[in-house]
């Protein structure tokens, strides 16, 4: 499986309150949540994002609240993968559990620029920046998590077990 898209770049500690502000948590509808995705950090994100685009950020992406609405909003906005130096642990779990591809790779997170065209090969873990020609190796998931992702989420995985 591959993802190709344009990069939206953010810094350290992007928290779940800016990914999806709590004032919109009176809804749990993915499409509705997506219309407010990243609103408090990047008000033009929703206007500019296209299907397949990629979010790249540095340290501790998704810190704060446990709201699964955060990865749900990102996924529903069309984003194909989030690459970060590190992820906050609840966001990491939630992404795997709902089937939003994420990848930890410090080198890629720091080197890739906003607007770059990036291609990710999930099987090999290779992240290729087509704009700069640089290539990076992402951290592959442990086998157990790969099984959850392959089952397209935790509940599917439980059902098939």
């Amino acid at each position, binding site marked *: 499986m591959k993802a190709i898209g344009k990069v939206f770049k953010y810094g350290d500690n992007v928290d779940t309150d800016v990914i999806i502000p*709590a004032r919109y948590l009176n809804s749990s509808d993915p499409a509705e949540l997506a219309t407010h995705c990243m609103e408090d950090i990047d008000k033009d994100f929703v206007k500019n994002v296209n299907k397949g685009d990629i979010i790249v950020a540095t340290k501790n992406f998704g810190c704060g609240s446990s709201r699964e609405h955060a990865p749900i909003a990102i996924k529903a906005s069309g984003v194909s993968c989030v690459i970060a130096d590190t992820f906050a642990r609840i966001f990491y779990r939630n992404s795997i559990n709902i089937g939003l591809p994420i990848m930890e790779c410090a080198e890629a997170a720091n080197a890739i620029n906003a607007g770059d065209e990036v291609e990710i090969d999930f099987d090999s873990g290779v992240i290729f920046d087509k704009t700069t020609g640089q290539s990076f190796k992402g951290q592959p998931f442990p086998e157990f998590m790969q099984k959850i992702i392959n089952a397209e989420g935790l509940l599917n995985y439980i059902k098939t077990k």
Partner: protein
Amino acid sequence: MGMTMTQKILAAHAGLDSVVAGQLIEADLDLVLGNDITSPVAIKEMAKMNLDTVFNKDKIALVPDHFVPNKDIKSAEHCKCVREFALKNNITNYFEVGQMGIEHALLPEQGLTVAGDVIIGADSHTCTYGALGAFSTGVGSTDMAAGMATGKAWFKVPGAIKFNIVGKPSKWISGKDVILHIIGKIGVDGALYKSMEFVGEGIKNLTMDDRFTIANMAIEAGAKNGIFPVDDLAKDYMKEHSKRDFVVYEADEDAVYDEEYTIDLSQLKPTIAFPHLPENTKTIDEIKEEIKIDQVVIGSCTNGRIDDLRCAAKLLEGRHVAKGMRLIVIPATQKIYLQAMEEGLLKTFIEAGGIVSTPTCGPCLGGYMGVLAENERCVSTTNRNFVGRMGHITSEIYLASPAVAAESAVKGYIAAPAV
């Protein structure tokens, strides 16, 4: 190789003699928790997968607390979804408006969380119960759904950071200063994926409410959980509040810690986290300018307990909030509310020019009951000061103890009480 307290609890719940950091395990759950924001997502996911029964109706707690009493029609629909699920599944521990409280103050008070438990909750501050010697951690709605259906969850066994607590805090220094000091020291990802293990002779100088506040904010350092040893004070608390048997786990002498810190309580000063991260801490003496504020919130799962209200009332007694100041006091549970009423604390708050609200998380996450306008500033005893957390993206939140919050409400700018 020795195990930490957290690792011992996880090993016992996974049916293993021992575990090591990094190991993936599946553990039995003693309690699965959800609120009115996270539970509807879990309930819908369960329905979609035709998972129509729960593993144990006594081991699930559903606490509508974020946007209740219902703040708007959509919130009302969420609460209705949770209520109907609770009724259909005969959930023992469903807490309706009038009997509820902010989940992390409510569950220990109701005796639902005890030492030795493994608890997951679809709320990041589920780590609060570590104050009682339980392993408890925040998860998302899908984990909650899986937990409700199977009674199990997968975990990666965390490594640990040890905090050796020594000394005795000075007057007006409380658990909030301790945890803000620690987060200021290690950063908002300083304990990422790890457990924060609090040990040391200084713990005896921390009340249970101090410990709940400290464990509560472990997540603000990125930790998986925070945990305290089970001493006589913790045992007395559990005997008073719970009918359940508890199991005391102790760390092995040769347990492995990635890092160790010593925290001398006697050296701590009133500590305030500046916008927009809990790690941006300053002690009161480091604040040279007068930072004028518009609103003070005293409450939340972090600081809405009786000790917190008593402390604030002591400072507000016979005084009045500054001109133009909005003081919002929110007892965290109905029981605390009643206790505060009987002790005359509510009278003090109202006479000081504050309002007192029914238990709700409302203002902490900018839901309702104290949303901030453009460029407004709030001193809050809550746990997060992210951009836009309490309202407009230009508004500012300063996290502090109930003592600093109360004194600031009177002065009109960030201030700590005189010692």
